């Protein structure tokens, strides 16, 4: 199972990295979805089957699909590729990349220095999560639904054609 974790992690990191480099919106989305799916496998290897399923169903299956819709509506496909290439000049990306590498290096050093527990033990399945949601996190669930309501009303309002 630990091998699964490493492989899935590697795929996730690689595909996320590739998202940065893509100039075609659809290709970028495909790599992003791949990254999300591998994170789902990581979740499964950590003993969290419920969120693994949710990651696939909601994140990859709904949120990314919204992005795909937008690509279709705005026609961000091959036509826009040329534009993106122009913007990705080396002198644009050297700075941020070096900065990011430094930060990641630091973070890795910090986190390795801390001896963590090995994850293991029984998987925390849907039943436990549900008990938590209906118990201590009850207000959180209600609040989350209000949050979604706000998103709904806002998106509805912004999506209407203005009267002019």
């Amino acid at each position: 199972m630990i091998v699964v974790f490493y492989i899935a992690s590697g795929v996730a990191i690689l595909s996320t990295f590739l998202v940065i480099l893509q100039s075609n919106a659809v290709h970028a989305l495909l790599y992003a979805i791949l990254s999300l799916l591998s994170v789902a496998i990581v979740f499964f290897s950590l003993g969290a089957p419920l969120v693994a399923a949710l990651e696939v169903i909601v994140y990859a299956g709904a949120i990314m699909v919204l992005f795909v819709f937008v690509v279709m509506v705005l026609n961000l496909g091959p036509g826009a590729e040329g534009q993106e290439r122009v913007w990705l000049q080396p002198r644009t990306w050297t700075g941020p990349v070096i900065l990011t590498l430094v930060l990641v290096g630091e973070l890795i050093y910090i986190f390795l220095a801390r001896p963590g527990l090995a994850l293991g033990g029984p998987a925390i399945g849907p039943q436990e999560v549900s008990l938590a949601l209906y118990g201590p996190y009850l207000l959180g669930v209600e609040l989350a639904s209000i949050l979604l309501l706000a998103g709904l009303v806002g998106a509805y309002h912004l999506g209407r054609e203005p009267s002019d």
Partner: protein
Amino acid sequence: MAEVPTQYGIILAAILFSLGVAGILLRRNIFFILLFVEVMLNAAGLAFVVAGARWGQADGQVMFIFVLATAAAEVAIGLGLLLRLHHQFKTLNVDEASDLRG
């Protein structure tokens, strides 16, 4: 399940998070910026699940579900704004779509 060291999980989340940050700094197209915000939120959610698994609690997964709801709401409004932006400015470039003084 065999043993996966917690720290590797956190490091994975940190790497994905940093990739998200790098992506936002590098791309000038709002569409991609929104995509990378989602990547960052996902990485943070991953960190929560790892932390929850480390302590054997369901709380990590519960937080992930809340993060999911938030990401969904943000994406809905974000993409709606994106469409409006394209309609008004005819471009998705963050530098060009800038009436307000930076």
